[in-house]
């Protein structure tokens, strides 16, 4: 079937039409990432910025600190605790969102088609609602005079407010709250394709509920689990707004620590090294994700 004469090849056409988008992205998104990588191996400037002298200090300071008096080198405990907190909270966020997300996605996918659209819409509203608003909303609930503490005190369960705000728990609650829709949506996509007759077949073959869950449902939902975990884990690890608002500046995560280096800390090479490291972790996770999910494809 012949189309209108096309003189250029489709590849050239594809690139030409994509060019404006690509140029914009290279200038204002991908390109500057290279500058970050370069800045991570430069020397720290006097106040902020960098001097164009090659230096490994930025990367060195990610894990170590040098005593200003006797030049002894030790592990930078403060940095390590921030890393540990970020990883711990991100894993916990992923697990909590999964515990709530799987039943929620399952519930939506098993509704009749007409009401399914409404439940999906209900999941997407919080997803598109401003992150800051959702974080404020959680703050309203958990602060000392918030509804949670007030309700518990009115019920006589506690005599004075529980301090949740400005703790790691607050950051965890906030992140789980904010990222839950990111877990539900890919899980829903996976379950939606699921042929429920397979469960029936499982029961017909005398499988217990647990066996059905483990051997029939989980393998098929697995791509959704991996996608959801990646989608929750990556933004959790780089979270900035939620720890800043709910952690109160003390309970920092990597994102806030990076910001600190570019602000008060005035150590751009360290900030750049931390950013590059975060980027590398994300890239590795994405590569693992594509490997695992492409391996799963033939099984459907």
């Amino acid at each position: 079937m012949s189309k209108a004469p096309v003189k250029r090849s489709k590849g050239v056409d594809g690139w030409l039409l994509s060019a404006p988008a690509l140029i914009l992205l290279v200038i204002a998104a991908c390109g500057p990432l290279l500058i970050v990588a370069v800045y991570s191996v430069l020397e720290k400037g006097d106040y902020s910025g960098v001097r164009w002298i090659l230096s490994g200090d930025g990367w060195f300071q990610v894990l170590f600190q040098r005593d200003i008096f006797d030049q002894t080198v030790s592990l930078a405990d403060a940095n390590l605790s921030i890393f540990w907190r970020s990883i711990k909270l991100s894993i916990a966020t992923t697990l909590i969102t999964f515990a709530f997300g799987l039943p929620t996605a399952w519930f939506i996918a098993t509704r009749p088609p007409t009401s399914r659209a409404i439940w999906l819409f209900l999941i997407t509203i919080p997803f598109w609602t401003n992150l800051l608003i959702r974080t404020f909303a959680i703050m309203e609930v958990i602060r000392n005079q918030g509804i949670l503490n007030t309700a518990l005190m009115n019920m006589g369960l506690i005599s004075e407010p529980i301090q949740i705000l400005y703790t790691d728990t607050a950051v965890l609650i906030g992140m789980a709250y904010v990222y839950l829709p990111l877990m539900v949506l890919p899980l829903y996509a996976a379950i939606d394709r699921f042929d429920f007759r397979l469960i029936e077949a499982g029961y017909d073959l005398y499988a217990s509920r647990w066996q059905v869950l483990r051997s029939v449902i989980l393998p098929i939902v697995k791509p959704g689990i991996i996608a959801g975990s990646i989608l929750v884990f990556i933004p959790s690890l780089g979270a900035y707004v939620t720890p800043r608002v709910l952690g109160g500046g003390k309970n920092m995560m990597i994102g806030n620590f990076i910001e600190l280096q570019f602000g008060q800390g005035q150590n751009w090479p360290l900030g750049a090294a931390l950013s590059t490291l975060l980027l590398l972790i994300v890239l590795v996770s994405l590569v693992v994700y594509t490997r695992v999910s492409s391996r799963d494809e033939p099984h459907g």
Partner: protein
Amino acid sequence: MAKPRVYDVTTLPGFTFIAITAFVLLYAPIITLVIYSFNGGNSVNQWGGFSLQWYQVAWENEAVQDATARSLIIALWASVISTGVATMAALGTTRRGKFKGQTTIYIIINQPLMVPEIVTAVALLIFFSSVKVATGYSGLGYLILAHSAFCIPFAYLPIKARLEGMDMTMETAAADLYASSWQTFRFVTLPLLLPGVIAGAMLAFIISLDNVIITEFVKSAGQDTLPTYMLGQLRRALTPEVNAISTALLVLTVLILTVFFIVTRKRD
């Protein structure tokens, strides 16, 4: 075929309960925030009866007015620019089958979705601060540029989905009737594609309007948008005014989303 079934296969023990709990937990905080925006009292702690006073306070606050205007200007430009370039890219990457380098284009277009925002924000801070020094220009252009870039994938995805759902017969027919490729695009492809374009533009608008981190790092002094203004307010005592602004923004988001769903559902 009546077959004795021990269980309803689609129900798993406890799943419905957890799902409903999840929905309640998801909405309870937002609803609390909305309710407290109508608080007549002076603090966020005590309920002082129903009142619209904080909406009036926010409405008359010049800093809020400025930030709102700035947010809308940036979101408008960003959605127009990103939708324009995303439409072209979607046409380029979907209409003519596979070609060499297509994966590279996909990776670059989706890059803002993969890289943590804080890293992009820091990168733009470094890059734009030297551009600011070099050119002396410190207007809204940087924010518009940055917003346009990270909105591209959000505009691109619905447009691409729409294009993939459209078959080529109409376009082929037009071409067979000697329409030029521009005429085919203008009178056949574009009208069919329009719902996708509108959907993409709306998502881009919401994404731009909501952005905090990149805006916070890229903005020059006195260039607060609504979200960065709200973040700044946190350093002081939280007032119900912030709740009122949040509610207004929330209503706007829900309105745009509702239109988005109506526009995209027509496709089916």
